[in-house]
């Protein structure tokens, strides 16, 4: 299985608010960050929590500037996210 993203890629997280368990924290929805590295390949937690088989998917460390998540702050937050939560972002859309 090929990884869709590589370190340095700008990605935008999903804005969806699913009715089930998800590991995309609410504070990191709809935000642009940058892939730090691949963090392994694991069945999607959203599927497993619903008793679905859960295909193995790539998981990434994605770094966000606090200001892009909360509107202020000078720190960074690195969140571990399944590929399913991510779409490519315009590289000029954020520089965490």
């Amino acid at each position, binding site marked *: 299985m090929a990884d869709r993203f590589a370190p340095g890629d700008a990605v935008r997280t999903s804005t969806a608010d699913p009715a089930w368990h998800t590991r995309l*924290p609410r504070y*990191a929805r709809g935000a642009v960050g940058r892939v730090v590295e691949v963090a392994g390949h694991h069945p999607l937690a959203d599927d497993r929590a619903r008793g679905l088989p859960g295909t193995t998917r790539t998981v990434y460390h994605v770094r966000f500037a*606090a200001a892009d998540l909360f509107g202020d*702050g000078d*720190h960074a*937050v690195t969140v*571990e996210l399944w590929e399913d939560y991510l779409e490519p972002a315009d590289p000029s859309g954020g520089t965490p």
Partner: protein
Amino acid sequence: MSGDHHASSAISERVRHVEALLEARGLVDEGEIDRRIDEFLAGGSPANGARITARAWVDPGFRDRLLTDANAAIREVGLSMAGGLQEQRLKVVANTSEEHNVVVCTLCSCYPIALLGPSPAWYKSEAYRSRVVRDPRGVLAEFGLDLPATTRITVWDASAESRYMVVPRRPEGTEGMPEEELAGVVTRKGLIGTAAV
């Protein structure tokens, strides 16, 4: 999920009830869950994280390997992340004079028990989990760690399958101290990133 895990809490009652049902229906043997938890916790101690840190302080090659592939590196000191049902990925990050790292699990309380022992109550509290991602500088100051304004802070949210450990900065005045003695100055808070050592 509740912040604390006291034996008298409502969540504990619910867990005991589910456990009794699982046993009554023959899905688990009596006492099996306790035995599995004991196995999982066996050997888990902040002394392990301290040993890894001391080695990283005295051996720059080990430090580099640790930051690149922590699971392989900790096997060099006889440790592993394979104590549970499957080996968990370990990500180790190192504090420097320019950058400070701190770990949280905002969704629950994920934590490398094998290397840090059972997690402290504050790590599982809603206050820590919700506040440290938004205002790490303020939360760290409440822990007594005042970082210079020039220090960049990165918060690591253990939101998926990896577990995280911080290598704190080596304290000044410890040059020449033997590795075993260095391990003795490392604290659990230092390994989470909420204190200097």
